[in-house]
C-alpha cells in the first residue's frame, strides 16, 4: 500500500482533473481552452469572491507550501482525464478546446460524495454566471475582482499543519 502525503493529494492531477470533468459536464456542450479552465478551476472553489454561494474552500490567508502554477495543475489533470477518456480535445481555429466525453458525463453523475455534490452545485452556478457575461466582460471581471495573474498561481493548498 502506497501512502501519500495530503500535499500530494490536494491539487493532484486526480483532484484537479475530476474538478475539470465536473465543470465541463455541467457546461456541456460548451468547450473551454486551458486559460478559461484555469480561471474556472479557481472560481469554482471561491464562488463567494464573485457574489456566488459560500466558497467551498476556506478563505484563509496564504498557507505554507510552495507556490504551484495552477495552470500546470489543470493541464496535468486534463491529461490524466484524457487518458481515462473522460475529456476530449477539439482543435479549432480559436485553439485547443476541451470538452467532456460521454464517459466523463456518466462519471460526473456517479459522484455522490458531500464535497462532490457541493462542487457540482457551485459549478452549475458558475457556468450559469459565466454564460450570462460575454468573453470580454469575463476577462474584465477576472482582472478587476481577482487579479489577472493571481489565478495563475495556486494560492491555496491542502492542510499544511494540524
Amino acid at each position, binding site marked *: *500500500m*502506497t*501512502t*501519500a*502525503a*495530503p500535499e*500530494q*493529494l*490536494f491539487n*493532484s492531477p*486526480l*483532484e484537479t482533473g*475530476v474538478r475539470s470533468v465536473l465543470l465541463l459536464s455541467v457546461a456541456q456542450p460548451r468547450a473551454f481552452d486551458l486559460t478559461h479552465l484555469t480561471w474556472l478551476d479557481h472560481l469554482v472553489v471561491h464562488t463567494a469572491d464573485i457574489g456566488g454561494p459560500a466558497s*467551498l*474552500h*476556506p478563505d*484563509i490567508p496564504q498557507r505554507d507550501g510552495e507556490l504551484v502554477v495552477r495552470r500546470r495543475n489543470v493541464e496535468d489533470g486534463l491529461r*490524466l482525464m484524457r*487518458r*481515462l*477518456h*473522460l475529456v476530449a480535445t477539439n482543435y479549432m481555429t480559436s485553439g485547443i478546446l476541451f470538452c467532456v466525453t460521454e*464517459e466523463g458525463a*456518466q*462519471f460526473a453523475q*456517479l*459522484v*455522490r*460524495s*458531500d*464535497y*462532490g455534490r*457541493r*462542487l457540482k452545485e457551485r459549478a452549475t452556478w458558475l457556468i450559469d454566471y459565466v454564460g450570462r457575461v460575454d468573453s470580454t466582460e469575463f476577462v474584465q471581471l477576472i482582472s478587476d475582482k481577482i487579479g489577472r495573474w493571481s489565478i495563475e498561481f495556486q494560492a491555496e493548498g*491542502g*492542510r499544511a499543519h*494540524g
Partner: protein
Amino acid sequence: MAEPSILLNRLIFTNSTGDTRAELKFSDSFSFVFGASNTGKSFAVKSLDFMLGGNRELPDIQERRPYDRVQLDLTLKPDQKLALERALAGGEFLVSLNGAEPVVRGARHNRNNDDNLSNNLLSRLGMAGKEIAQDKSATKKPLSFRDIVRLCIVDETSIQSEASPAQTGEVQFAALERNIFKYMLTGEDDSALVTQLKPKEYSAGRSAQVSLLEQMLIEVEAEIADSFPDLDKLTDELEKVRGELANLERQIAFVRESARTKLENKANLVKLINRDQQRVTDIVLALDNFSQLKRVYDSDVARLESIEEAGFLLGLTGDDSCPVCGAPPEAQKHRHALAEIEAARAAAEIEIAKVKAHVIELAATVGDTSAELRRTGDRLMDNQKSLAAIETEIVVGLPGADDNLRRLSEIIPRRDRINRGLELSKRKLELEKQIAELKKRRQKRLPSNAQAGLSIHTATQFAAEIGSILKAWGFPGECRTFFDVEKTFDLIIDGKRRMDNGKGVRAITHAAFKVGLMTYCRSRGLPHPGFVVLDSPLITYRDPIRSRDGALSADESAIKNSDLAERMLAHLGSLGALGQVIIFDNIDPPTNAATYADIEIFTNNPVEGRQGLL
C-alpha cells in the same frame, strides 16, 4: 647715647632772590648767643619753635622785612640730615632728607600717616603712636611733637612764669600736660588706660537708655492689653493646644497610611485587570485561529472523501472491462494511470482518518481554551468590581482628610497667638528688670585710672636730678629739692615753692628744670629729643636801673652776687652727648666762656661785630 636725638645745626633766613641771607649756627653741645636788647634773640627762639612746627605767627619786626623764608638744618642722630624750609608767613614745610629733592610735609600732627612733620620726627625719635590721657575719664589724645617741643624750647615769658615748667598754666590742659610730663619721665603713655564715660555723659546715657526701654515696655504692655486679655490662662491653653495638635497629627498620619494601603491595592488590581484583559484578547484570537483550522480540517476531509470516491469510481473495474469505455483489461490503455489513482484513493482513505483524529484533538483544545476564557472573564469581572469598590472607598475617605486639614489650619494660628502672648509676657518681665537694674546702677570707676600724673617715687628721683644740677650751678642754700605732684606740680627747693621766688630765681630754676628733664631722660634712655633752648635764663643779672624788668628782689641779689652764671654755663658746656643746649641772653659772657661754648654776639652796634640776628 644710642637713643635717637635731634641736633639743631643752623637757622637761615633768605629771600626768594637769594641775595639776602642771615645765618645762625649752633654748636653740637653748647651755644651761647649774647645779644643786647632788640637784637633778635627772642625772634630767633620763636623762629626755632616756628620751624619745629609752631603755629604762632612770628613777630612782625622791622628787620624781617627783606626775608620771606626760613630754613632750619638739623641732624636726626645718628645718620640723617634734614633741611626744613618754611615761608615766614607759615604753612607747610618743604623737607629735604640728606640733600634729596624736598617733599611737602604738613604742619599739623596726624598720627595716621607720614605726610606731616610732627609724625615724621616722632617716628624718628621712637615716640610715634603714643596716647596721652587728657582727663580723669582717660579720654585720650595722640601725642604730638609739639607737646614735646614745648618742654625743650622756653621763651622769655615762660621762663619767668609762676606756672610749673611742666605746664603752660592753662587750667584746661593741666591734666594733659601732667600726663605728657609723666610720659617723658617714665616712657609710659596712657594707651593702656580704659576710657570711661564722664559722669555727666554717663548719667545722660543712662537716662536715655531708661527712656528707650520704658518706651519699649509701653509698647509691649499696649499689645498685651489689646490682644491678650487672657494672658494668665495662656500657659494652660498652650498645653491644651499642644495636646490637640499631637492628636490631630496622629489622625492625619493614620489617614495617610490607610489611604496608601488602598492605593497600593488599587494599583495591584489595575495590574491584574490589565493582564486578564490581555489574556482574554489572546484567547479570543487563539479560538478564532482554532475555528479557522477546524474549517480547514472539515474542508480537507471533504476533499479527501471526494478523492477517495473518485479513486473508487475510476478503479472499480481494474481487472474488468473498463466501466467507462467497455474495453477489456488487455485493451485498456490507461492501466498505468489506474494504478496511480488507486494509490491516491488508498492514501486519501488513511489521510481522512488522521485528519479526523486531529479534529478531535482540536475540539479538546478548544474546550480547554474556552474554559480558560470563562475563568479569566469571571476573574476580570470580580477584579473590576473590587476596583470600583476601592475607588469609592478612596473617594469617601478624602472628606475625613480634608476635615483634619481644616482643623489643623485652625489650631496652628491659635498656637502661634498663644506663643506670641507668652513671648510678650516674658519680654515685659525682662524690660522691667532691665529698667530697675539700670536705675539702680552707679558708674564704677577703676581706681587704677584715677592715677593721673606722677608717682611719688619718680617725682622724687626727678627732684634729686634738679637738686644736683642746682648744686653744680652753685645755687644758694642746701638745694634740697622736692616735687609737689599734687598741687603745684612744681619744685619745692629748701622748703620754698619755686613759684614763690622772684622772677630771676624762677628763670634760673626753670632753666635747671628743663636742663634736668633732658639729662634725666637722656641718661635713662627715656624719650627726649635731646636739645634745650632757653631764652634769658639769667635775667637776674640784669641792670636793675636800665632793665625793663626793674629792681632786684633779695633772692635775686643773692644770686647776682654769686658765681652762679659762670658755674651754670660751665656745667652746661660739660653735658656733651647728654644733649644740646642753646642759650640766648643779654649778659656779658664770662671771660673764659669760649673754652666750653660757641659764642655768638649781637652787638646792636652797626659799626662793631654782628649787629643782630638779621
